[in-house]
């Protein structure tokens, strides 16, 4: 059984050093801070930097706006296409990363005894759906004359958010349950991302696009429900043993 939690000699807390901790605490208690104030000082400096900050970067101008006409693009005109393109780029990046996250999860489960009782074929399905979603968004971006190879600011931010997930999923020492928790975080965001995109497509008057996105969301709903369920079962087994 893949046991997430083992009892052992964790040394990070104070109970392993009952004498030393008394000395440490006693010294800290009688030693005043060397400068007055509190963590507000940090907030203040952050604010100064925020006030003077640049943006992460820009959304690239679609070639249609540079002259090439498309019916889809006409619908976007008059609204603000850069926000939509930014979020499309974000979805594309997230789905592409999602494929890699599932690759790592499949490897982790395959290496666990009995595959940690996670149906691997389901994980493969999810992985392939992430891939199809990536291709779907890629086509959509191209159809409105934008560049699917560009990294948009929201895609950049999602990349930063995902870094921790990747670290957890590829650390050989993490358990299947740890990885499922990381995956749950990803799928929760994934799910909301699609809902957001559908809403935007509808508001932009792109009904066909919204319909394709609805299909993706139905699949994402399944990802979320399954990952959440497997994670829950594993934690319960680990905690109460059944």
């Amino acid at each position, binding site marked *: 059984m893949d046991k997430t939690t083992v009892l052992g000699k964790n040394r*990070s807390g104070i109970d*392993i*050093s009952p004498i030393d901790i008394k000395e*440490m605490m006693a010294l*800290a208690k009688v030693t005043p*801070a060397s400068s007055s104030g509190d963590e507000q000082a*940090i907030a203040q*400096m*952050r604010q100064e930097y925020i006030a003077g900050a640049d943006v992460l970067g820009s959304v690239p101008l679609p070639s249609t706006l540079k002259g090439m006409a498309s019916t889809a693009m006409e619908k976007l005109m008059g609204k603000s296409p850069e926000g939509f393109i930014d979020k499309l780029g974000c979805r594309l990046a997230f789905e592409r990363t999602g494929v890699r996250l599932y690759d790592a999860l499949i490897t982790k489960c395959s290496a666990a005894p009995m595959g940690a009782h996670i149906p691997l074929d389901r994980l493969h399905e999810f992985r392939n759906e992430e891939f199809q979603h990536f291709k779907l968004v890629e086509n959509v971006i191209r159809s409105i004359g934008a560049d699917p190879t560009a990294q948009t600011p929201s895609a950049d931010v999602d990349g930063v958010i995902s870094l921790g997930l990747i670290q957890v999923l590829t*650390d050989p020492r993490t358990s299947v349950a740890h990885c499922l928790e990381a995956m749950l975080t990803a799928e929760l965001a994934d799910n909301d991302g699609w809902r957001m995109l559908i809403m935007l497509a509808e508001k932009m008057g792109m009904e066909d696009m919204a319909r394709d996105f609805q299909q993706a969301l139905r699949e994402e709903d399944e990802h979320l429900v399954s990952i959440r369920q497997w994670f829950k079962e594993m934690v319960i087994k680990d905690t109460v043993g059944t």
Partner: protein
Amino acid sequence: MALNLFEDKGCPLDRQRFTWKELVQPPISKLDDDAFTRVRVILMNGMEMEAIRFSHGCARMNRKWQLPLAQLRIVEQHQATMINGLLGADHSILETTIAYEQVAIEVTAAVAQNEPDEYLAQVYRFGMLEDFDHLYRYSAMLDRLEGKDANNILQCYTDIVPGRPTIVEHRAPQDNLREHYDRLRAAPITKLHALTIMSSEQQTQNFYLNVAPLYADPVVRQLYTEIASIEEQHVTQYESIIDPKETWLEKWLLHEANEVYNYYSCVQQETNPRIKAIWERCLDYELGHLQVAMNMFKQYERRDPAEILPGDLPEPIKFESQREFVRRILNQEVDLRALGTQFVNKSQEGVESQQYRQHLNASGSPTDMVAAGYEWFAGTELARDGEITREKYTRGHKITH
């Protein structure tokens, strides 16, 4: 096991080989391994980094030794990567930084007590109190940025209170140079100490320079920037205590001997058997390096390595909490300042250092700001005022002891 530098020949250089897999081994456990295992990992990475830096410097100045230097250097490179890879990626950069300062404090304090040269012992105590303060600043940052307790890393071995405030550690360059030991008269252990601490500080400086831009928060970037500047001063200080009249080959010999000495210290005290085996392997390799360096020394300088090196290695560096010593020095020497190569009371500090610092600190000091009002508490500052929270979860429950 007593080691003799002339009799124990170690692993011959041509048999010192690795596979990529050997170079990337499972890391130590951040949570379960003893903090001093991590201290040794960081320290030895520092020794290997210096082995590489020195070897490059030597090669650039000595065409005729470039081949043997390159043959050894690639092994040092692989040792460095094997050892640095023992740190797990579940350490945040700030958590690793806490461990770096623990190395600086505990190892420098141990060295200071063991150093026979009274002036150099003072130099080490002086530097140690500054790193001691860095630990406090980084601990405040770790708590206030990531919501984590530095003591998870320190494991109660090292205190977290202000030392010589970092804001006053900034000095004019002339106040960072020290007197050097005399290569003809200094005890071998004096030379090994100097190389050890200089190497350790140098890797810390490099580390801070490299990692500062990995943080998004400008506050953290400023904090690393300020402390990295002190680490540069520390490298300047510690390299100046080494006799510049040592020849290139003499220095090479000392570098290899120092690696032997440090690995030997690690082997003696390592509690994790898997890591101990790595130290033993490296020790064996370094003895092989020393053979090469000794042969070079004999061939080119026509001198006997025994002029420089002791046969039997000195007592190992003690890897254990130096709490009592550090507290005593904190009490007695926190107000010392450097004036030229000497140490004086803060009232006698030179005007150059004061002016230099005044300008740097003109818009405030990051180390002061991040630790404003910070007093470490187990579980740290949010835990100190946590009475309400505790009540909330115990209300209605009978607490049994």
